[in-house]
């Protein structure tokens, strides 16, 4: 039980509990909080793996921007406790089995995956951030530009959607 493993298990449990709580909670803001917990736990895992930049970005963008947006919208719409309607038969019947099947598939795929996955790795912090940035701006520069366009379009779309039409 190396310390890394211990930390991993702590964070993993935190994440899973958060996810479960996301499902259990009936008020969206509690779900949001539990999701934030999950994200912070994941950031911790990233740190554990040695990719600190991703961890920071994870918290800044997910925790600091996206989830804030969620919370903001929840507050703005003053969303209440969700009502328990069961109009969709399909979801009620087939939901759980499907999810389980999905999980089973993934687990099986991982289980039968080759040895490289089974072996552990020492977290390598070898100029990680620098490497990522060079890769981002050299090899992936066109996708990068494209994502910037995507963001622009998203901003415009959000504005158009959310503005009240002049009456």
């Amino acid at each position, binding site marked *: 039980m190396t310390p890394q493993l211990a930390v991993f298990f702590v964070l993993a449990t935190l994440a899973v509990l958060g996810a479960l709580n996301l499902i259990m909670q009936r008020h969206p803001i509690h779900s949001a909080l539990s999701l934030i917990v999950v994200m912070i736990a994941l950031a911790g895992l990233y740190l554990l*793996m040695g990719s600190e930049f991703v961890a920071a970005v994870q918290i800044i963008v997910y925790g600091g921007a996206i989830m804030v947006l969620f919370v903001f919208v929840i507050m703005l719409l003053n969303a209440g406790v969700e009502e328990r309607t069961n109009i969709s038969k399909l*979801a009620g019947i087939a939901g759980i089995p499907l999810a*389980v099947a999905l999980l089973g598939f993934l687990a099986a795929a991982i289980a039968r995956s080759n040895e490289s996955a089974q072996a552990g790795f020492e977290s390598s912090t070898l100029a990680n951030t620098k490497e990522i940035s060079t890769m981002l701006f050299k090899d992936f520069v066109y996708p990068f530009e494209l994502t910037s366009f995507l963001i622009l379009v*998203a901003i415009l779309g959000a504005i158009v959607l959310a503005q009240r039409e002049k009456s």
Partner: protein
Amino acid sequence: MVPTSYYLILSAVLFGLGVVAFVFKRNVITIFMSIELMLNAVNLAFVAFSQARHQSDGQVFVLFVIVVAAAEAAVGLGIIILMARNRQSLNVERVDLLKL
């Protein structure tokens, strides 16, 4: 020394939970959150692989995923606001106009 498969299994579990939430929550905002949860699970797998293989491109993909998630959140929440404004309800089962 954490085996990669642990991370993968964790991400699989998170993904599955995300799927469950996706199906079983009625509140559209929560459903949206569950999508984010799934994305996070995928990110975890990405980072785990990239660290296991000592290649950074997995983490670059994570960055892209995060960016796309941000854009998605912006537009999606805009839509949600519109929906709440027009139908006075956030319950997806009350929004059943997607049929003939």
